[in-house]
């Protein structure tokens, strides 16, 4: 019998009542509620609109790349921290993901630098 099967049995359900599981895994905080998620969604929408607007403003051509990169990083962070709950979950998840990101960033920079290419 697998653990999942056991949980489905009468004994398994009674055991869960006698020894309820912890509300949070170690090192975790409560996730936000729907209202906060909608606020983050609205923020993402606004940042996307700003990105597109900035793209069409000729006066900002000289600083277009840093502005777009900053806005993109902001959107990335909002989704990863709130929607993927890295802000609230155990830090081991963050360590694993950021480790992958750093490795990917290093490969990215090395490839572009080796062949003399850039973002523009």
């Amino acid at each position, binding site marked *: 019998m697998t653990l999942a099967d056991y949980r489905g049995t009468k004994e398994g359900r009674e055991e869960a009542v006698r020894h309820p599981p912890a509300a949070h895994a170690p090192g975790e905080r409560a*996730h936000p509620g729907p209202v906060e998620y909608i606020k983050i969604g609205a923020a993402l929408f606004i940042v996307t609109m700003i990105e597109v607007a900035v793209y069409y403003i000729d006066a900002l051509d000289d600083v277009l790349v840093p502005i777009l990169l900053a806005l993109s990083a902001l959107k990335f962070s909002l989704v990863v921290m709130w*929607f993927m709950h890295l802000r609230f979950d155990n830090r081991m998840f963050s360590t694993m993901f950021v480790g992958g990101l750093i490795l990917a960033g290093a490969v990215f920079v090395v490839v572009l630098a080796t062949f003399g290419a850039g973002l523009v």
Partner: protein
Amino acid sequence: MQHAPTADAALETSTGLDNRKLLMWLFLASECLFFGSLIAAYLLYRNQSIGAPCPSDCVIDGVTHEGLFDIPFTSVSAFVLLMSSVSMVLALAAIQRADQRGMRVWLATTALLGMLFISGQAFEFTEFHREGLSLSSNLFGTTFFVLTGFHGAHVTVGVLILLSLLVMAFRGRLNQAQSLHVELAGLYWHFVDVVWIVIFTLVYLIQP
């Protein structure tokens, strides 16, 4: 909001964390390398094509070619995928408070938005192909189609996962105790979204 008291949390592991969630994060970390390499290859080769078409307006052999990218259209696609992330996280919030109806509605909304995004990508690919861009037409075409094609394939897999969850929910096999299934699907979906955030900026908005 409190986490749902899942039976999964009763699992005892050496880290105290659910191994399935740990594995999902490890998978997503490896995906960062996968997409990072594809984006680097695109940026490396997009300006080295010796023939049209080009991503933005370009001059080849003295002839000016109009750029292919349609920024307003892609902005709408990016917006659709972003909003699907909102509906995905609302589906998770719903199942964590045992709101079955809410979960089904938000899961279905996410799947529909995902399908809308894929439809947009199919339309874009068709338009580009009509303009003469293919996998083998030039270096821009090769790297662009490989990068965005792999992303589209990830979105497609995500939609299939969402539809599977929806079927499970309608059969009564997805309740509060199994909220981890929705959470894992959500992690995958949000990752696909953040990859598009990067692609939208580096590939579409930042032009040579």
